[in-house]
């Protein structure tokens, strides 16, 4: 019965990703990002991407690498500080940017994975985020109608995964990953540990394999820390 989702490596995983596509990329800051797949996209040189990702990496890591390379046409994110090249491209108009409240971003991913066309949220009511959007009052409170995302590929990073595509995430590296995993037309998962079916506790799987199309064991994770803070 095991449906086998394993591909050899990032190269095979990223087959089919082509110019102009919309990609979801998991991670919060540099935490829980699919490092191998991003490196592969840089190598492929695929262009004019629309990237849905909470952040845009830093100048020389994460999605920052794709930005440096001018492979991204549009970013859909909630927070894009920490990245000078990003700010430059955005202010100069080279890069299109859609800023989305973080909870709205997360819930629009979930909505896609749960087959819900829209969600209503109070985030952004009365702000420029509400411009052009339907505002509707429920129980005396205003909400914005926000659409589920529609992504060609979702690329996520998990801690462990099995050959059927079941995923487990670790600590706050979970963040957007399980939501985006549910939302891609095709979902690619790179994992630190690839195991056989039955090795993961069925009670403790965050993403069921039905949502995952390709899985591979990533290599040489750098896991860079953005703000190294320690106790005095």
């Amino acid at each position: 019965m095991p449906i086998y989702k394993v591909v050899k490596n990032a190269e095979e995983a990223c087959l089919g990703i082509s110019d102009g596509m919309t990609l979801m990329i998991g991670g919060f800051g540099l935490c829980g990002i699919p490092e191998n797949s991003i490196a592969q996209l840089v190598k492929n040189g695929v262009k004019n991407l629309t990237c849905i990702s909470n952040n845009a990496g830093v100048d020389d890591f994460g999605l920052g690498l794709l930005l440096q390379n001018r492979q991204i046409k549009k970013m859909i994110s909630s927070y894009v500080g920490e990245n000078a090249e990003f700010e430059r491209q955005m202010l100069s108009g080279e890069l299109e940017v859609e800023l989305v409240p973080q909870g709205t971003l997360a819930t629009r991913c979930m909505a896609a994975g749960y087959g819900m066309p829209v969600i209503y949220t109070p985030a952004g009511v009365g702000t420029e985020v509400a411009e052009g959007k339907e505002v509707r009052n429920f129980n005396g409170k205003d909400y914005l109608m926000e659409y589920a995302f529609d992504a060609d590929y979702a690329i996520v990073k998990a801690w462990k995964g099995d050959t059927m595509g079941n995923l487990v995430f670790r600590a706050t590296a979970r963040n957007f990953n399980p939501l985006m995993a549910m939302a891609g037309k095709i979902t690619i998962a790179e994992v630190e540990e690839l195991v056989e079916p039955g090795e993961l506790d069925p009670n403790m799987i965050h993403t069921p394999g039905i949502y995952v199309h390709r899985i591979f064991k990533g290599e040489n994770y750098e896991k860079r820390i953005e703000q190294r803070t320690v106790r005095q």
Partner: protein
Amino acid sequence: MALDKNGIAKRIAREVADGMYVNLGIGIPTLVANFIPEGMDVVLQSENGLLGMGPFPIEGEEDADLINAGKQTITTLPGSVFFDSAMSFGMIRARKVDLTILGAMEVSENGDIANWKIPGKMVKGMGGAMDLVASAKNIIVAMQHCDKAGNSKLMPACGLPLTGVKCVKKIVTDLAVLEVRDGAFHLLERAPGVSVEEIISKTSGKLIINGEIPEVSI
């Protein structure tokens, strides 16, 4: 003497009560954690997916997979829970978080807040702030009373793009503690040695002063 950042954080910590779930924003709000009294049962939420945020790690024990919403390395505590971003903002939207403390560039007399964008200059994005202010039960803003040019940040109306409307309940600045209510800033306390006149002169929005204003005790 105006309050320094730790002073502001210390004063805000007095608003935290036993049994609360609290979300701390980046900057001064983060410092509030240091002043929550020992033995008080409070759980800190970090909107990137953690309930039960602990202190920074000991050097050498930093974990790249374990950060807070400010991307700082942190630790967990017994009873901590990780979850995804949808659940994190789900619990925020469902008003399960009792208190939200965050910074601001401007606050208006009717409780509007602006803290995410300076048109043409700086656009870092709103992160989770718009979700937090739209749904929080109680919002306290921690900020300087004036900007670097000396202009009041407590205004009749915000000039910058808004983060949320009519949501701020209380403000703690370097000079004062104010309640936002009925379309005005109500002065509750003044920083030690700071005169009511100074606060009046540095508050451009409608300011209500009722009776004697005590000094902040921290």
